[in-house]
């Protein structure tokens, strides 16, 4: 190692990134605005989740079985988590009044969680026995309908069960993941609005109060969340007067959230624990899916050109630094710290804390496996087949991912 870092900005990574600075910087001084980074973060996280859903489809090919198990696993985890002090903290963060008792206020969590990750829309009804939320934008609409079912049961019905009181059953009669114009979540109390019982994953409806749905036509749909809209003062504000700025939302989960990935990861962990699948086999499937995704991302010449333009890569830079620049922007965007060890035309080396990539202790090491495979795949198409990307472990602490991008001959490709 030469410890050679070419002249570049930012030298001290992290200090120049959010939230201290209104923009992210590429190694070539190109600024990526806070606004763009926020949107980039949510779409990137959704894309990673989409790959994890493919992993899930390989492991559990049957749609109904997959959805049921994903809903159940997520539901158990959410109900457990929100039954603890974590649930109380969420109540306080959303300004839930002490007299609000029942499953309906989870709709407020849904609303704030949606806007936090760029899913803009509106609350159409908010009462003890019925609530309705309509979404206009969803970066996760590329995952497929499973994620809609899981977030409705695991993320809403199950959380509402954790709080007790008058219960609510959440349904999603429209979903962008299924091709609908909107996502629409309707929560109903079954004592007031009886409906036949159904499996937990069968939550696309029908609902009892379809005649109360308020449909927003396309021309009145939002394109941006409250925190990016001038009339909202660039703040998200829920119905109980809790306000958060875009910067607060970005740094408190907007950029780091792994919605979708966590749903899959929770079930995969359970399956590994129950010996339904071995960790080695799971890692192999994750690697195959993400490596293919990485290669595909830059397989077309215009994708390479687009990325170079976006990062501001000089024309004569045609080596591992291009991929390094891309990785740095991703890491800054998702608020993962890293240290530049090498950054020159022969090699690029970063030290990245595992926590920056994994983001959920319970899912380790699945995201590390996924990112290493995806970036390895990218090295082949973004830089060239002589190039590779791998993790070096010798002499490196376990909690650090030492990432190396350099030329490498590997007769076995793994």
């Amino acid at each position, binding site marked *: 190692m030469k410890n050679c870092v070419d002249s570049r900005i930012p030298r001290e990574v992290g200090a120049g990134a959010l939230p201290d600075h209104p923009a992210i910087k590429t190694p070539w001084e190109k600024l990526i605005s806070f606004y763009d980074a926020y949107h980039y973060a949510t779409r990137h996280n959704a894309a990673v989740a989409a790959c994890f859903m493919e992993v899930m489809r390989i492991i559990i090919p049957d749609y109904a079985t997959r959805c049921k198990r994903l809903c159940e696993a997520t539901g158990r985890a959410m109900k457990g988590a929100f039954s603890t002090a974590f649930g109380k903290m969420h109540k*306080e963060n959303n*300004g839930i*009044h*002490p*007299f*609000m*008792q*029942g499953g*309906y206020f989870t709709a407020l969590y849904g*609303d704030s969680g949606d806007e936090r990750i760029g899913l803009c829309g*509106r*609350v*159409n*009804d*908010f*009462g*003890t*026995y*019925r609530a309705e939320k309509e979404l206009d934008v969803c970066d996760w609409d590329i995952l497929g309908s499973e994620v809609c079912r899981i977030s409705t049961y695991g993320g809403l019905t199950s959380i509402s069960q954790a709080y007790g009181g*008058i219960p609510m059953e959440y349904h999603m009669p429209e979903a962008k993941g299924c091709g609908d114009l909107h996502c629409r979540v309707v929560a109903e109390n079954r004592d*007031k609005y009886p409906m036949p019982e159904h499996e937990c994953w069968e939550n696309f409806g029908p609902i009892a109060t379809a*005649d*109360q*749905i*308020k*449909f927003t036509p396309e021309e009145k749909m939002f394109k941006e969340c*409250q925190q990016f809209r001038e*009339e*909202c*003062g660039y703040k998200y*504000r*829920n*119905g*109980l*007067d809790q306000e958060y700025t875009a910067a607060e939302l970005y740094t408190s989960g907007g950029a780091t959230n792994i919605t979708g990935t966590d749903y899959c990861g929770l079930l995969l962990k359970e399956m590994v624990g129950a010996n339904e699948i071995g960790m080695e086999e799971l890692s192999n499937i994750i690697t195959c899916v993400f490596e293919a995704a990485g290669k595909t991302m830059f397989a077309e010449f215009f994708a390479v050109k687009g990325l170079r333009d976006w990062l501001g890569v000089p024309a004569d830079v045609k080596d591992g630094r291009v991929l390094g620049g891309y990785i740095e922007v991703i890491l800054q965007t998702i608020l993962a710290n890293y240290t530049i060890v090498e950054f020159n035309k022969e090699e690029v080396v970063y030290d990245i804390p595992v926590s920056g990539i994994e983001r959920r202790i319970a899912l380790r090491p699945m995201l590390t496996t996924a990112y290493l495979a995806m970036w390895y795949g990218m090295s082949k198409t973004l830089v060239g087949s002589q190039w590779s990307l791998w993790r070096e472990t010798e002499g490196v602490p376990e909690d650090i991912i030492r990432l190396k991008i350099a030329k490498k001959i590997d007769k076995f490709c793994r």
Partner: protein
Amino acid sequence: MFKNVYKNDPMKREQHEAVRKTAGWYYFTHQLLEISGKDATALLDRVYPNPIATLKNGGARYTTMLNEDGLIIDDVVIFRLEENKYWISTLFVRKLIAWLDAHKGESKVEYKNITDVTDMYAVQGPKSRDLLNAILAEKVDDQKFFTIRENKIGDVPVKISRAGFTGEKIGYEIYVAPEQKGIVEAKLAENEKAFGALRITEFQIMVLTLATEKGFYLMCDIGKTNPFEVGLDRGINWDKDFIGKEALLKVKAEGAKRQLLGFTVDEDDVFIASKDKGGVGDLVIVKGEEVGRVTKCTYGFTVGKNIGYALVESAKTQVGDTAVINGYTAVLTDRVFV
């Protein structure tokens, strides 16, 4: 076209009308901060624009809380329990504690969040006094509005405050330790039938329909306004110093630029986005001009119409104006509907 979520809902109508015609009772615990110490009165008088020092023991007072710009950041009811001991009823206790922390200076005061140890039930409506008299050790016939007294339900010590958020002339609140709330609930349930009373369970009735009909505010209506804009300047004590006074004096001299008006919409099946459901609310358009936004919108079962509030430009609006809100025709009104 969709059904009006209020008008066609018999459960909501029944609960609303119980409070208006007989009595309704419901769990209505707010956040409660207990503040004590020899400087408590002085600190509260500096933090709140309405007078605190003049409050008698056992008395209660509504007041806004302002920031240095004279803008409302909370509204509370303060109970004076003893000479130097108060309860502050709020829905934003975290912000309140932070605000007091920032402004207490060297004051000799202590405050603690007692929300977890103090539950509250609202008993509201014309028959609420009779219902309470049936379960309390001491009758509340002579208890005046905005007073709080010790009492008992069986052996359970309670505090009874005469107040409420329904606009009813007769209405009470029962403060009780959480471990004994089951006894209070049982007693109310046991006696409700004799007075035609009903347990209220719908959030929209507790918070929106009853209060809006009578001109009561939520923070979505008055947050970040100044008291002159929303008609809350009347109780201010201008003879003392309080946070926001300087800015407010300027508003007083220049006049309020906005006003909080009511509105009605005759059409039944409307959807009007309002701040009570998050966001900033729909635009209010008068004579083709954007004049403000809707703060809340609900249905007035007693009024028999969709009703709401809108914060609008004073110079461009007056009661009686026709407005367009999300394509629906509305009429601007006073804030008190019944």
